[in-house]
């Protein structure tokens, strides 16, 4: 195993197998992955901060076996911050908290290409700071269908007095986030609310939307997965790489951009490649910053 030592903010890290081709279809090596996360760190770290990280590791690359790891590996350096989070009322699990650059690079060096985090912070696991509509296209539907649903959701939520934000999943879907950032709203509230919205969308757009998990219900429709609003669920973090053939990124879009992409009718144009991420963020700013701070309350609950 090849090994390279680096110092990051005074911490010594041993980086391994940097030449390993983690995306063999794209020639994107582990060194490239670490470089990507180093570059995006100022933008992704606020979204990872104090959240119980679930690692999704691809030690042999995206075309080989992967495994999810919730427990923060016991061989972690002593400076990696952790939090014990109770599981479903049961015994707590010790998770990694990616609060700084050195931890982000350490996690990426474990070939955890995808970074998954819950909608709540480790200190208040029952209180989500945002509500999410996970738009998942069924067979025969694609991201263009998702964008129609996302734009309808934006308008519907806006009528309800709620501002929302959208990002690509980095795969085939879109994620619509509604920032809450208040201490009162619980997962029970967000689940009730998103389920009612999904039900109303399905009722009014039965050919486009389903609120049901069943695979056959999803054919040619977009499944609004409201059940992601749960303390035990995680979402792919904004700016995280995805472990697909190509290194696409879960990336925030301005609503105007989504309208434009939707009008263009080409699903491929929704993909955001890792190489363009830092440039686009630096031009447009962190479009998802508001999700972390904007305070909103759910009406009619």
């Amino acid at each position, binding site marked *: 195993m090849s090994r390279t030592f680096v110092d990051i903010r005074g911490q010594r890290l041993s980086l391994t197998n940097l030449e390993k081709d983690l995306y063999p279809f794209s020639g994107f090596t582990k060194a490239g992955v670490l470089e990507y996360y180093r570059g995006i760190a100022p933008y992704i770290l606020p979204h990872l901060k104090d959240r119980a990280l679930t690692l999704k590791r691809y030690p*042999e690359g995206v075309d*080989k*076996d992967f495994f999810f790891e919730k427990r923060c590996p016991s061989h972690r350096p002593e400076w990696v911050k952790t939090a014990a989070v109770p599981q*479903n*009322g*049961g*015994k707590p699990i010790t998770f990694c908290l990616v609060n700084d650059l050195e931890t982000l690079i350490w996690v990426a060096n474990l070939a955890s290409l995808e970074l998954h985090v819950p909608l709540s912070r480790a200190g208040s696991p029952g209180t989500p700071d945002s509500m999410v509509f996970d738009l998942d296209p069924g067979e025969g539907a694609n991201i263009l269908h998702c964008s129609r649903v996302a734009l*309808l959701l934006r*308008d*519907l939520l806006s*009528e*309800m007095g709620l501002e929302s934000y959208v990002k690509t999943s980095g795969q085939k879907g879109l994620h619509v986030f509604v920032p809450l950032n208040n201490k009162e709203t619980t997962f029970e509230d967000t689940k*009730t*609310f998103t*389920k*009612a*919205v999904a*039900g*109303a969308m399905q009722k*009014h757009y039965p050919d486009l939307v389903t609120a*049901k*998990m*069943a695979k056959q219900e999803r054919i040619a429709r977009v499944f609004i997965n409201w*059940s992601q609003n749960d303390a035990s669920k995680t979402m792919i973090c904004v700016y995280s790489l995805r472990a697909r053939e190509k290194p696409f990124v879960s990336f925030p879009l301005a609503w105007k951009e989504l309208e434009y992409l939707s009008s263009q009718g080409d699903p491929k144009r929704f993909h955001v490649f890792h190489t363009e991420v830092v440039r686009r963020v630096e031009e447009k700013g962190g479009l998802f910053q508001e999700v972390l701070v904007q305070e909103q309350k759910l*009406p*009619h*609950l």
Partner: protein
Amino acid sequence: MAAQALWSGTISFSLVAIPVRLVKAIEPGRVSFHLLHSKDYSRLSRKMFCPGEGAMVPPDEIVRGYEILPNKYILMTDEELESVSPERSRTIEITEFIDMKDVDPIYYDHPYYLVPSKGGEKAYQLLVEVMRRTNKAGLAKFVLAEREYLVAIKSRDNTLELITLHYHDEILPDENSASKKGTIGAEEESRMKKSIEQMIEDFDPAKYADKRRKKLVDLLQTKVKENALVAAPVVEEEEGESPADLVAALEESMRKVKANQ
């Protein structure tokens, strides 16, 4: 598409390290059924029931107990169980090579195949070939699904086969061993030998098949043709109506959204 790997890592001994994947060698031919409610064909689910309380028990109120005396239990937490579980391992370290014929088949537990991972093909073929020629099998300790197994690795055609072995303590004594005494008459012995010799054949496992399974599959195919299918009613994934006030507000907002389009 390659078979799904149950595990991947390396086989190693002395200076050799070969990347491999563990895959299934057996696909049991069992036909399994689901239990349905005869009234509406819903799939039945199992719930934990507490006879003391006369009520269903939620998952977070369930703990493990080892029955040490009748109705006396020792509690065991997940952490305690984990503390005795072996660490996940990425290697199968062969510690000795043995003659496979020295292993009593009663020790055989479950067979798997080990197939080479990318970059390991050459070393793998060499090991298969050498093991075949020398008739040796590797003995190793191996952690799979939180259990540590003693395994034998031998060559089978052009592949490595991994067989998990029972531990010595798991083998029950032979209850019949007490009645071994008594002499065998020469005539009796020769008669039985003759009967056996008349029936000797080469072992051909392909000759045998699970007849019940075949009949069952035929019956299922007939029933599919008769279109005798039943389906459970579609149920909402989670019970509970949405609050009426919220539903009304959504209807009103939806009306406005549609009007603006």
